[in-house]
């Protein structure tokens, strides 16, 4: 999902603030039924099913984790096999490629790369770290990490029209509705 860019869209989006997680959840469901797709919700803690209600289905992080694990295990085993063949030291007539002795490092590297891919992938897919975001310009947005719940409809949504979207958000009876401007310079 791409965020609206300053050079193509006049505003960033409309944000509605709610007091409770249930209000946000029902608001998201209604907005989805209304046909909005490019939207996001903000909450102080993860809420079960909220992302799904937004239409977000993304299994890339688990797949990346699996891929990282396989990659790490292959790397670990391959590294040990390669180095033993590259500089063979035969001790006590034991085989150069000693699978039991290699398992520990193979396992450790599998874990290491699975976690690196998982967390690195999570950050990259979330476009983090990001030092600024148009929402941070809003006075009340700091409450998103405290006790408030927000629904954002982005301006590049097909059904976005400033006044009608505002009227729709008002029908959800939020605490307040704010227009979010772009705060970055147009490129």
């Amino acid at each position, binding site marked *: 999902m791409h965020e609206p860019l300053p050079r193509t869209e006049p505003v960033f989006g409309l944000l509605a603030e709610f007091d409770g*997680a249930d209000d946000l959840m029902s608001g998201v469901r209604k907005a989805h039924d209304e046909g909005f797709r490019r939207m996001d919700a903000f909450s102080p803690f993860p*809420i079960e099913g909220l992302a799904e209600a937004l239409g*977000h289905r993304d299994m890339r992080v688990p797949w990346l984790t699996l891929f990282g694990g396989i990659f790490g295990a292959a790397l670990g085993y391959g590294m040990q096999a390669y180095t033993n063949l590259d500089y063979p030291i035969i001790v006590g007539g034991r085989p150069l490629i000693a699978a039991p*002795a*290699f398992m520990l490092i193979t396992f450790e590297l599998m*874990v290491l790369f699975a976690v690196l891919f998982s967390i690195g992938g999570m950050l990259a897919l979330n476009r*983090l770290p990001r030092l600024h975001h148009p929402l941070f310009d809003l006075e009340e947005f700091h409450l998103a*990490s405290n006790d408030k719940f927000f629904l954002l409809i982005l301006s590049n949504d097909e059904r976005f029209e400033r006044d009608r979207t505002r009227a729709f958000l008002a029908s959800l009876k939020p605490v307040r509705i704010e227009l979010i401007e772009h705060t970055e310079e147009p490129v």
Partner: protein
Amino acid sequence: MSHLSTSERDRYAGITEEITRIPLHYPARLGWWICFGFALLLLLLFFVSVTVLFRYGVGVWGNNIPVNWGLAIANYIWFLGIGHAGTLISAMLLLVGAHWRNSLNRFAEAMTLFAVVCAGLYPILHLGRPWLFYWMAPYPNTMTVWPQFKSPLTWDFFAVLTYLTVSVLFWYIGIVPDLAAVRDRAKRRGAQIFYGLAALGWRGSARHWARWRQSYRLTAAIAVPLVVSVHSEISLLFAAGPIPGWDSTVFPPYFVLGAAFSGFAVVAMIAVVLRHALGLGDLVTPRHLDLLGKFLLATGLMTGYGYFAEVFTALYAGGIYEKGTLLDRLSGQYAWSYWGAAFANFVPLQLLWWRRVRRNPVLLFLIGLSVSIGMWFERYMLLVTALYRDYLVSSWGEYHASFWEWALYTGMLGVFLVPFLLFVRFLPVISAFEVKEALFTEEHHA
């Protein structure tokens, strides 16, 4: 419209307030400075002992032949074992969905990080030429040789490196949403910049949370077998050696459970101290102390099985060298370490059968202290009593830790305490968003 009443919403805000006030308006400044000054002295002692060690070599320690491993490796195992409880509490309880973990996981993970750093320093310092420790890494070098991957020392390198990296990442992605909460509440410019950078621009987006959750849970799922593998690996260092008293199949589970045991003891101690010092009585409740006490008791009894199995296998197998080592442990020169371990680990522990004892912070702290000392005795006992007398009378010897070994150990406590105190002072010690999430789900299921 909201069926969430105002008072419930206030509770979310109250949780944020209670947790974020600690880094922003630290309550017990004087006490913190006293502890921090003391920790800095310990750290100074660490640097002095390391300087002496680097200047004169490992000869300043009491290690010799036959006891070529002494405090260095005993402390390595001890510190790493303490670290494991943090990961277990955090990861295992996350996976089984125990909500009460939320009040403990953050500082337990921080304890893990700093304990692993201390542990990781020991094998490096124990090397004759510690500045060449990177030779353990497989990099193309001018000598065209590679590390010996069939050696447990190289396993150590990979195990500790992986464990440290995974613990740091798990802890950090777990703290990012709370750093964002502190950032949003910071008033001073310096604090805003510090927490702003550390929070990575986190804004609580539902999509972010969804991916974050996938990643966090997967990392937790991988971290649990990692703990088992890391400590089993250490025990393989022993069990793979043909030394009577080490060459035992019970070692991997015995070490892993002993690690969890000592770690829970330290978590219990830290929980009691932080709860008292920072006024966190609402978040770390007697129920948490009760559960920690139960964990401590359970892992302690499982460790007790390890003690029993060691004696049993020695007697049942009937090997003369095994029996000799057993006798040396029970009544030899270092019998104080065996009986010290047996006493400090198990006698005070039995008090935890009583609920009132588990819920009493002072008693829980004292039992935790006793267990951490007892587990230190155990690691010492396992090392020294097996080495000082092996098959040949000609290779019998004694081991006495030298002044600089003790100095390094004392200083290492500073390496643990200084970053831990900085963590307590500047970062949210309890996971605010997870407490809120637990509150939310509880109210929804009720």
